[in-house]
């Protein structure tokens, strides 16, 4: 195991985070704060509680998930896309590193960054709305699992993308809609029966439901199903990454 290489890639990526602090950390915090001001404090005051949880508190897990998803994808996809774009990828490809080490470095850094971000958002949210966390360990587990899974997904997008447009395409056209329709701002039980069924095809529903359960002990789908579906998605991403390195797809001629 080339620990030095993992550390080098991880350190390089984290340095990028600190260098672009404003964009990496501050702007998602500001935009999330705006959600809380609008939905939590202003509109939330006129909403009835959902499953016994006040609306302001109800949207906290969903908003954290929303940031976690989008940031994991954008961090990881950009992290691997950029060396491909400027050509510095030659060094990674010619180094004595295994695919696992490359992924550990890039995905590890992207996931770390979004976890830090998620925690910052949680702390920020506490300034606007009171909430409690019933199962803190589960909460952390979901945070970790989601960050890891979607960072892997982002890594795949970064390898697949051969221009900047494609890099934005999947997050914009698929991930953001799925995240918004995944129950960030509502319980899926509030939907008509037909749409409740449709919603079950949205993987984000399981993430948000499980994550919200770790806060308030209430969920749209059962905890087991949430964890299971997340693991399935993680496994799918791992398989795809394995295939990418085995075939050299978009990396090696």
């Amino acid at each position: 195991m080339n620990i030095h290489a993992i550390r080098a890639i991880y350190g390089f990526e984290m340095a990028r985070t600190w260098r672009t602090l404003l964009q990496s950390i501050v702007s998602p915090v500001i935009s999330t704060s705006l959600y809380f001001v609008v939905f939590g404090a202003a509109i939330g005051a006129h909403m009835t509680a959902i499953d016994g949880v006040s609306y302001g508190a109800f949207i906290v897990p969903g908003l954290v998930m929303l940031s976690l998803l989008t940031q994991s994808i954008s961090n990881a996809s950009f992290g691997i896309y950029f060396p491909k774009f400027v050509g510095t990828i030659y060094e990674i490809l010619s180094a004595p590193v295994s695919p696992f080490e490359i992924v550990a470095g890039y995905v590890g850094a992207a996931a770390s960054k979004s976890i830090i971000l998620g925690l910052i958002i949680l702390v920020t949210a506490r300034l606007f709305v009171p909430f409690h966390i019933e199962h803190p360990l589960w909460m952390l587990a979901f945070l970790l699992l989601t960050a890891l899974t979607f960072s892997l997904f982002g890594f795949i997008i970064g390898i697949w993308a051969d221009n900047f447009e494609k890099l934005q395409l999947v997050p914009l056209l698929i991930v953001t809609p799925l995240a918004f329709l995944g129950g960030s701002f509502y319980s899926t039980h509030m939907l008509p029966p037909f749409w409740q069924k449709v919603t079950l095809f949205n993987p984000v529903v399981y993430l948000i439901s499980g994550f919200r359960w770790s806060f308030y002990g209430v969920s749209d789908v059962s905890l087991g199903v949430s964890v299971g579906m997340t693991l399935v998605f993680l496994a799918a991403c791992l398989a795809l990454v394995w295939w990418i390195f085995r075939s050299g797809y978009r990396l090696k001629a």
Partner: protein
Amino acid sequence: MPPIISVNQLSKTYASGFQALKQIDLDIRQGEIFALLGPNGAGKTTLISIICGIVNPSKGTVLADGHDVVRDYRAARAKIGLVPQELTTDAFETVWNTVSFSRGLFGRSANPAHIEKVLRDLSLWSKKDSRLMTLSGGMKRRVMIAKALSHEPQILFLDEPTAGVDVELRRDMWAMVRALRATGVTIILTTHYIDEAEEMADRIGVINKGELILVEDKAELMNKLGRKQLTLQLQNRLENIPQALSGYPLELSADGQQLVYTFDAQSEHTGIDVLLRQLGEAGIDFKDLRTSQSSLEDIFVNLVRERA
């Protein structure tokens, strides 16, 4: 001593169907400077890229210090440093960080003393805290060399190291290459500047259209290079070379109108004076004469044209 790099029957066909390499066989000797010479698109970079792991081979194998570059890539690549042709650097990193990054990537523990030495050797020390985007092209080239040397490789590939480089950097680079060779590092450089190969290399390989058409000691090539030919345009047709002149390396053209004398231009006695005197004595008159020299350039151009 076994070769440090052994290329066996290596072929590469790109997805587009373009065959970049055709069954290349090549052994690089430990500690030599090997120049791979060829026109643009000959396959130089493809060959290097396969050895370094950036491009997958279609057929054939490459051993680097006995390690298969595909199956045993970890051991093989740890020995190799690569300076690619394109100037590709991270814009926002500092010189120090990017060179340290390379060392880590190649699995070596941090060694600030070594990094400092590399940076000083390449006149980069004063720039160590500069961001890469603030550096000139020549300085970026030096940074890329520093990155390749950061993990103390035993084999160094320089792909077109002096393309677009000023005289000073070129001289520095050559000095550096010689200093590295003195420490036992094997250096493979590609170039299409023939004088560079002449100046630097122990051996020269010529590649064209994916085929390795010549591999020879530079000394051998220089020998050919050092040879000159004196061509005499005769006044009268000659049937045979006269007995009196049989001691000379003379050749008579088929039409009997030209007499060609080959000599070593670098030797003290070329023998031209004696030859001309004896020709006079033998009653052979000539109306014109010229001397010509075959340069590495000629050899190269002829080789490449022959195969075209």
